[in-house]
């Protein structure tokens, strides 16, 4: 056994040496093969990276237990959508008051200008706000660097994100510091670690699925009382002067997520919601059919169709491009193997079997594949940077995860060997004497 | 017909200058059948290449059928080659992908004949060499002798003034060689001017003129009285030959 593996190891080394020699004999041809394969693979990988970012599960540890709530409580028979993904205050409170879910979060998106109240500078930072009930932090597994979330919905406390902490407090532990937000003072009780959600599942609507996580997390009631305006979709059947006045009106703007640990809980909660809707119906306040829908993270993302169709279209085109590159590599390799006919014939004449020649050829293409694969990683990265110039919305998505890097090298390897298959096969069909002539 | 005067063909490598032809002078009249012999490397092939306008020469003058060749551009040389010269190679040089018909047809295309004219000439030429029934065959389906005959037909189809043959029987066995020489002699009897390079001294003896090339120069030449063949009057085109006794072979030799 030992002798066999030693022999195959030395054969491999020999084949590798032969491959290097072969490359030196036709450097421009092999360069072209490597170049075109790596461009093809690189482009495809970059696109797959984008699609992956868009289609991946942002919270795999509990994506099946987190559910978005949509309800059909629009107060007249001319609904904006059925069911609606945003809720009124009264429904939101009903959800939050249930003890069936392990965690629940009801929130809306807003924005304020933030400043360190202790700072002499009047410079204020435009910050995105998530006005939410406290359950948000446990529900989303928000990672805390310092401190923790606020406990009640009506305190003057906030949690801030890593990036804002960097901007205002240069990254230090700012728990206890006071921020001036739109003229009001709120105390920081928690600072998050850098938190990337791709996609931003908790707010996947209104084209926000690829936004960064929020800068400030504020208690819901406090936000409403401070009149921090709604920055995402809101619909109403009545006019209202500001968010302060939405608690008792038919203004739909809050989104709700619940954490239900198993199917029994899910059923129980569904029943709870349906019961509530029925009670509305009984007093004539629910004109539409009862349609309360719970969708887990992946189902919700799928429903929102957040995978950018443009990127999908381009990915398709890059698959075709890779085919063209493979065909190109194949015909280049064919011409190379043809001109190497004499040497191959000589080897065969002195005793190399067809299998040896085949292994030599495959080793050569595998080596090409690895080189092309490494080059393609660089090109993938370059292309991702480039794609941001063309489609700026993709900026937060343009990341190359390790599994994609591996995919790139594997793909290059496979395509290199695949393009060499027919030329290799043709090479074995020559008669030795014809090769030597 | 062919007048070469002090032709020199020099090959220049980085350090060495080789004279393949050196002050080579030769006159060939219409209707002559000239055998060119000489040791290998003597320059006889070079002579034939220069004569056939396949290669250029560095010094001297060359007049072919009254046309002075030096200073002619590639276009004109090609035209001359196409119209006046019929070349027969040692290894036939047929296009393996093309049928017999297409092979013989090739030079006619460059002449600019229309399809009917070409068809006529191809069929006539193949008739003359006895292969008219094998129009659609590929060269690989024929014996060496038959392939050479096709090559001869190709050389004849354009009615050239002079035939140049480079060891035409070199790759053939003695029987096929005989047949090919028969055809050449018949063509000469009907007025064809032929210059043939050969190793075979017997072949050389059979023609009416011998020249020897040694070290790129013309050595002594002897004019043999032809054994039993009569040259007809000069200046005739080779095509004006009544169909001769070339029997079509039933069996592939």
């Amino acid at each position, binding site marked *: 056994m030992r002798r066999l593996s030693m022999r195959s190891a030395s054969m491999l080394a020999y084949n590798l040496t032969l491959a290097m020699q072969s490359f030196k004999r036709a450097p421009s041809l092999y360069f072209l093969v490597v170049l075109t394969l790596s461009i093809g693979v690189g*482009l495809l990988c970059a696109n797959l990276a984008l699609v992956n970012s868009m289609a991946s599960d942002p919270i795999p540890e509990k994506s099946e237990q987190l559910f978005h709530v949509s309800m059909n409580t629009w107060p007249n028979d001319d609904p904006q959508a059925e069911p609606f993904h945003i809720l009124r205050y009264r429904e939101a409170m009903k959800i939050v008051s249930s003890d069936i879910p392990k965690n629940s979060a009801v929130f809306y998106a807003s924005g304020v200008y933030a400043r360190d109240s202790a700072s002499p500078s009047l410079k204020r930072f435009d910050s995105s706000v998530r006005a939410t009930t406290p359950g948000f932090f446990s529900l989303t597994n928000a990672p805390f660097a310092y401190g923790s979330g606020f406990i009640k919905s009506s305190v003057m406390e906030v949690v801030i994100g890593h990036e804002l902490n960097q901007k205002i407090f240069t990254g230090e532990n700012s728990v206890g510091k006071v921020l001036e937000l739109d003229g009001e003072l709120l105390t920081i009780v928690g600072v998050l670690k850098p938190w990337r959600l791709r996609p931003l599942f908790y707010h996947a609507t209104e084209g926000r699925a690829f936004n960064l996580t929020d800068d400030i997390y504020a208690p819901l009631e406090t936000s409403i009382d401070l009149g921090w305006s709604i920055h995402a979709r809101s619909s109403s059947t009545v006019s209202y002067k500001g968010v302060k006045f939405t608690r008792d009106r038919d203004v739909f703007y809050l989104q709700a997520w619940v954490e239900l640990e198993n199917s029994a809980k899910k059923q129980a909660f569904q029943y709870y919601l349906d019961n509530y809707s029925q009670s509305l119906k009984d007093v004539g306040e629910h004109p539409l059919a009862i349609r309360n829908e719970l969708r887990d993270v992946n189902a919700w993302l799928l429903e929102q169709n957040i995978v950018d*169709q*443009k990127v999908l279209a381009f990915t398709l085109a890059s698959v075709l491009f890779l085919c*063209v590159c493979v065909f190109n590599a194949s015909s280049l390799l064919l011409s190379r193997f043809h001109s190497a006919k004499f040497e191959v014939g000589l080897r065969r004449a002195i005793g190399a079997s067809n299998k040896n020649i085949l292994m030599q050829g495959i080793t050569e293409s595998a080596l090409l594949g690895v080189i092309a694969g490494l080059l393609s990683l660089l090109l993938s990265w370059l292309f991702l940077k480039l*794609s941001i110039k063309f489609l700026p919305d993709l900026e937060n998505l343009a990341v190359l995860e390790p599994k994609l890097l591996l995919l790139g090298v594997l793909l290059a390897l496979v395509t290199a060997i695949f393009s060499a298959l027919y030329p290799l096969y043709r090479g074995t069909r020559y008669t030795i004497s014809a090769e030597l002539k | 017909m062919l007048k070469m005067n002090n032709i020199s063909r020099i090959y220049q490598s980085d350090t060495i200058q080789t004279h393949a032809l050196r002050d080579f002078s030769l006159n060939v009249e219409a209707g002559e059948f000239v055998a060119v012999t000489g040791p290998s490397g003597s320059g006889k092939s070079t002579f034939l290449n220069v004569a056939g306008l*396949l290669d250029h020469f560095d010094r001297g003058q060359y007049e072919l059928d009254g046309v002075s060749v030096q200073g002619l551009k590639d276009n004109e040389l090609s035209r001359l080659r196409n119209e006046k010269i019929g070349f027969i190679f040692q290894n036939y*040089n047929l296009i393996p992908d093309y049928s017999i018909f297409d092979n013989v047809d090739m030079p006619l295309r460059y*002449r600019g004949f229309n399809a009917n004219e070409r068809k006529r000439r191809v069929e006539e030429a193949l008739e003359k060499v006895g292969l008219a029934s094998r129009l659609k065959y590929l060269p690989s389906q024929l014996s060496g002798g038959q392939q050479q005959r096709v090559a001869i037909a190709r050389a004849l189809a354009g009615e050239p003034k002079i035939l140049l043959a480079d060891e035409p029987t070199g790759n053939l066995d003695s029987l096929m060689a005989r047949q090919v020489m028969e055809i050449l002699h018949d063509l000469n009897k009907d007025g064809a001017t032929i210059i043939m390079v050969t190793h075979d001294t017997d072949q050389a003896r059979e023609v009416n003129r011998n020249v020897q090339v040694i070290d790129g120069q013309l050595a002594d030449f002897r004019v043999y009285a032809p054994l039993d063949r009569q040259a007809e009057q000069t200046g005739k085109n080779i095509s004006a030959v009544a169909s001769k006794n070339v029997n079509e072979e039933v069996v592939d030799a």
Partner: protein
Amino acid sequence: MNFATLNIKGLIKSLLLRKFTTGLLILQLAITLGLLVNSAILAFDTREKMSKPTGLDDENILIVSTHPTSGSYRDLDYYRSIVNEDLSKLNQLPGVNSVSITNQLPIRGRGMLSNTHDIDNPEQEKADKYLKDVKYTLAGEHLAEAMGFTIIEGRFLNKSDELDFDSEAKNNIVITESLKKGLYGDESAIGRETNNGIIVGVIKDIMLDPTLPRDKQYGLFMNTIMKYIFIGRFYVINVEPGQMANVRNQVSDTILAVQAERDIFDVFTMSEHLKNFYRDDQGLSDLFLLLCGLMIFVTAISSYAYSQFHISRQKKYIGIRRALGARKKDILLYVLTENWLVYAVGCVLGLVMALGFNILLSQYISLSKPDMMLFLLASAVIFIAGTLATWIPAVKTSNIPPVIATRTV
């Protein structure tokens, strides 16, 4: 170019003898053509979308997008006073014709919308779904001049339409032409009452939402911006032609000089706003064109390699042809024609590919159907690119001397 010297049948036969390499090249050509056609369609589609008239004086409208940063602006009277001073100072800049303030801009999908129907005819909305989503724009007093609206009936809003903040009276509104048609057909709309207010004027359509049909650009304007000053995000400035650069440089400073606690997000012209709306479409189109370029590059390499490979195997036969009297031109033509035949087959197959890709891509993005002219143009590009790629090998081949025919090595 004497094509009579070519034996086309012979050429085709020799192409058929090398099915693999020829087939690969044909496939590449077909795919390239398919992509080229569709990329061109995408580029033209995008260009067409972007050149649709907006009904606005795009070049001469400057927009400033701004938001106060300080909490003092919660005092709305303070906010209003600052805004009024902003507007007055901006108006004083040389080159400025008029200034106004508004809550949202045209050329934008969705936005602030309201359902609208004639007060006596609420059922209208059921018949025309676009009436549910009418663009609800709060207009400052001079918005019509700033934007360059064309009044076709009645008048635009003025100071008198600005009600007291706690007034319960009905608002006066101005609507777009298509909304008028949608509500009242060909009748006059002046004086009629809708659920949102009483119509005092109708303006010629402007492009409110490019994703909606041309005749469904439903929009209404009312002069309540001061009441809801906190959503007055955009200053709209009408600039004298030629003065845009001057004015543009000064707006930020002018506004900040009035009161510095403001965030000026962006200063842009209406035409830049339009371009920005199609930024992603343009981006995708550019990406596709980039891919085309790469594909043509790779296919050109293939064509070169293919040509080079087969010529090198044919050296001897080229020599024979020369020996038989072919001129250099004839050989050049021979080599080029060989390639052109392959391109021709590739382009024909490419037509099928182009149609196929078009159908496939239409599942993801909106794409017009290909037409013959485009296909012919794309084929021409392929032919030219291929001929350029194989030009040097072709010329080298035509230079093969006839003496090669006699070489036995």
